[in-house]
Structure formats: structure tokens, C-alpha cells
């Protein structure tokens, strides 16, 4: 099964709130992809920027194309915004292990932060009917694009929006909203939490899940060179000791397996250099 594609850009437009929506034609990848998987995109054929960039799959359209949402975070994504429909990009994927979708009568609790919503949106499209989707941000303008929120509302049981300044949805953090929800929920044994977003948020969510002894899966964001398990660059520290590769054994991990403490620094870096490059 080949994973390397020349993917034609079918559509590439600003989607609001600083995001771009990129739709790429890649039938083989589209058919194979499951929620939580990602692709590596090359933004140039030249030698700089050298490495491909990882992006989570937001949905599959008509079984033939892949929908991505991304935010300009630095040189590569800035360059990507210039690629016009009709142009073809080298696309590697689908990569990594996705979420294992919930068995019957499980209520999925999805929680997204930052630019972590795409894989969970894909999840919601596939298995969202009973899902509660929590999404939070500093303010309205940092939430996912409207079209994504609309799609989430249409594909889940309920979308819980939280903003720290209260400019949209309930005021506070999405994790507060999650806590409140869990407090009211009797059948916690039926819940499984799926989280994707900044490291600090993932750490918080996994703590909350542990307190309520709810199974929790998190999708991690690490720097990646190859996306194939070859460079060993994307390692995530494990509680059991040693590291696992986000691109191969991940990006989705059982929250209990990750050695949260040790990666905080990573996250500081990541978020920092995202800030820098904006």
C-alpha cells in the first residue's frame, strides 16, 4: 500500500479565525484514512524549508479527497498559504495510529484546544451521533472556524463551547466545562474521553479523566521529520520508561501511558515557537 501521493489542490481558502481550509485530491489516502491519523505535506520542492509538515485529517470528502484546516505558525505554513488550487503537493499518508472508535453504547467525550480540532472533527463525522464535543479558546476569535462548529453541531449530540473571556459560549476553560459536565453525569462508566490540543490541555484532561477513572485517549503534537518511524525525532516519554514515536505508535496514546511531567518543556517550546512564528 503506497502512501506517497501527488495530491491536487481542489480548494484552498481562508476559513476564518486565522485558519485555512485545504482540500486535496488523494483517493487512496482518503479511503484508507481513519480519525486521528495525519498527513505530511511538502510546502516546496526546493531545499528550504526542507521538511514536510504534519497536519491532522479533518474529514474525507466523497471518498476521494482529504480536508485539512491549518493556521499559519511559521515559514512552512506561511508558504503553504500561497499554493493555489490546481497545483499539486506531495502528500504522505495517512500516517500514524488513529483513535479506536468507540464500541456500541459508549458515549464519546471529545475535547479540542488550539488547532487540535481537525482529528476530532473527523471522529465526530464517523462516530459523533452520541458524542459531546468540548471546545475552548482564549476568545471567540481563537475558536475553530464557524463552518467547523456548524458541522460539529450537526454531527454530535452537543457542542460545549467555552471561551476564557466569555465572548462565545460559557465563560472559562473547556476543561472547566468538562468538569461541570462530568459532575452531572451518572453513567461515567459509559464515557470515553478523546482529546487533542496543546500539551498543557492534554495533561489537564488526562488528570481529570484519571480522577473520574474514565478511559482517555490523547493525540499528541510533536515535531516530526519523517512521519514514518524512521528518524526517531517525534518521541513521547512513556510512564513505563523509554519513548514511543508519535508518528508510528501515536499520535494517539492512552493518557495513562504517557509520562506527562517530562514533556512539559516540549510543550513550552512548541507553544513558544508557534507564538514566535506567528
Amino acid at each position, binding site marked *: 500500500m503506497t502512501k506517497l501521493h501527488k495530491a491536487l489542490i481542489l480548494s484552498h481558502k481562508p476559513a476564518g479565525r486565522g485558519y485555512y481550509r485545504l482540500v486535496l485530491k488523494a483517493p487512496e489516502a482518503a479511503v484508507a484514512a481513519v480519525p486521528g491519523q495525519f498527513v505530511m505535506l511538502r510546502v516546496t520542492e526546493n531545499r528550504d524549508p526542507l521538511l514536510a509538515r504534519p497536519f491532522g485529517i479533518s474529514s474525507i470528502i466523497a471518498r476521494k479527497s482529504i480536508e485539512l484546516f491549518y493556521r499559519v505558525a511559521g515559514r512552512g505554513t506561511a508558504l503553504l498559504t500561497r499554493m493555489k488550487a490546481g497545483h499539486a503537493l506531495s502528500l504522505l499518508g495517512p500516517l500514524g495510529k488513529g483513535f479506536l472508535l468507540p464500541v456500541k453504547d459508549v458515549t464519546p467525550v471529545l475535547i479540542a484546544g488550539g488547532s487540535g480540532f481537525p482529528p476530532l472533527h473527523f471522529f465526530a463525522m464517523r462516530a459523533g451521533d452520541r458524542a459531546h464535543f468540548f471546545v475552548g479558546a482564549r476568545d471567540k476569535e481563537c475558536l475553530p472556524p464557524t463552518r467547523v462548529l456548524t458541522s460539529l453541531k450537526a454531527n454530535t449530540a452537543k457542542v460545549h463551547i467555552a471561551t476564557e473571556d466569555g465572548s462565545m459560549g460559557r465563560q472559562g476553560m473547556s476543561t472547566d466545562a468538562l468538569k461541570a459536565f462530568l459532575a452531572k453525569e451518572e453513567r461515567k462508566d459509559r464515557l470515553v474521553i478523546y482529546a487533542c490540543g496543546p500539551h498543557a490541555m492534554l495533561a489537564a484532561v488526562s488528570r481529570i479523566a484519571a480522577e473520574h477513572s474514565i478511559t482517555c485517549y490523547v493525540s499528541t503534537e510533536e515535531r516530526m521529520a519523517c512521519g*514514518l518511524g*524512521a*528518524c526517531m525525532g517525534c518521541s513521547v516519554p512513556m510512564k513505563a520508561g523509554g519513548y514511543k514515536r508519535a508518528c508510528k505508535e501515536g499520535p494517539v496514546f492512552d493518557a495513562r501511558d504517557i509520562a506527562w511531567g*517530562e514533556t512539559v518543556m516540549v510543550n513550552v517550546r512548541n507553544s513558544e515557537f508557534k507564538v514566535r512564528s506567528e
Partner: protein
Amino acid sequence: MPAKIKTKPNLSVTLAGIKLKNPVLTASGTFGYGEEFADFVDLNKLGGVIVKGVSLKPIAGNPPPRIWETPSGMLNAIGLENPGVDVFINEKLPYLRRFDTAVLVNVFGYSLEEYVGVVERLDGVSGVSGLEVNISCPNVKAGGIVFGTNVKAAFELLSAVRKATKLPVIAKLSPNVTDITEFARAARDAGCDGLSLINTLLGMAIDVRCRRPRLANCTGGLSGPAIRPVAVRMVWQAAKAVSLPIIGMGGIVTGEDALEFILAGATAVAVGTANFVNPRATLDVLDDLERCLREQGVGDLQSLIGKVSVG
């Protein structure tokens, strides 16, 4: 421009006694143990595979972040993560044995004894064509001085390794030295059968916001097209200094890049960082190389080794 030739040029070369069907190898640590690229590369098509560095005992590697992109290159501080020689032999090598390609095992250690230990363990193991000895490691028993940056230490290490195995021994030199030819001669004098260069250049990048190094390890190895001019220069110098066959590497992306190394004196080449950017890079280099030879009307790649005419 020279007349093109129809017949397939002969790409096979012999390196340190190892027959290679073509000169294109994979650089250690950039191709895993081959399996990772199964979807993209038919290993039977490659001249050989140089596997990720293997040590006597498993090594967990460095904490993240381990990589950072730089202009036309990348920094890495993986920390030589690997499952150890026994797991390699039992779980990784069997897969590689299935293919008709040379398998060079890259070995390293943190003391002379560790090197010798892993080398002895691999001696006589079927499916191993030769050893590439990564000498860019600190000798913890000697205050952490890097074997590969001290001629005497390098000579002693390589001599010990040479004695410990019947396999061809290829010394992988560090480029972070004043005079690469000293180390080429030391490897020759230690009885090595070939040289491999270059390993990564020591580099560093800083996140100016949080004022920390981009890598948890602080410094890391610079690889990719950015370093190619340095690599070609060192291969050229080493080839002039000693008659040992050389595996040239450092930023190879195209067949012309590979040809630069061959003209500089390399008998074979290894593709590294390019595998990350394009998992088919090795095969692309191979096709490209063959096209170059046809265009130039060259029937046998051997005739180009070291053929750069200076002045």
C-alpha cells in the same frame, strides 16, 4: 554534449570486498532497519542498507525535542536510541535477510569495550555484510572525549574493533575535525577496509522567545543539503590521502549530488536526510544516477570514481 548510450550502464561496485549491485546505500539512522520504508522502496533495488546504529545494550535516547529544522538542513539529537544488538539480531535482521541487498550494520559504544562487545556479537551472524563503525561517540571512560576527534583514540578503537571481527570494517569519520586526512590515515593504519563520511556537523539552534536551545540536548548533528559542500570537500581530501574505498554522504538528494561524491573519490554513496523528505529518495537517486551516466555516455560507473580533474 556527449552521445547518449542505449545500453544500461554498469552501476555495480565492490566496496571493502562487499559486492554492491549499485552504489546507492541508506545512511545510518535515516532508514530505520529497512522495514519502515517497505511501502516505498523495494530493498532488492538498493546497493545496500546501512542500519541505524546498534549498541551492546538497548539505549532509550535523549528527551524531546530531538529535532529542529534549519536552512536546507536539520539538527538532530536522537541520542542513538536503539533496542540493542540482541534485539537487532533477533527481530530486525531477519526482515533484512529476505532481501538481495548488502546489509551494513552501524555500531557504536561509549567505551572501547562496548564497541568490541557489539562487534563480537555480530561476527559471523548471517545476513551481515559488513560493519560501519560510528566513532563520533564520547568515551565515557576517558572523560567523555569523542573517539572520532582524537587521532590516537580513534586509532586504538578501530584497531581493537578490527581485531574483534572477520567482517569488513568501515570507519565512519566525524567531520568535526581540523584535518580529516589524519583520521583517514589512522583508520587505514588500524586495518580498516573502508571509510564512511561524513557524519553530522555539530550545530545548535536557539528559540529566541524562551531563550532555550531548540533541542533538549542543547547541541545536535547538522545534516541535509546544507552540509553537502563540506562533505564533498572531505571525501575529496580523504580519497587523496588514502586508497581505502569510501562511502560518501552528506546532503545527497539527486543523482547529480551522488555523482559529485563519486567524482570526488567515493566508491559508494549513502542517502540520509533526504529519506525523511521523500521516502523514495534512494530509488530516485539511483534512477537519476543512471540517467546521468547515459547522458554522459558512461558505460561503467567505476570509471568515474575520483575522476574530478583539478586545475
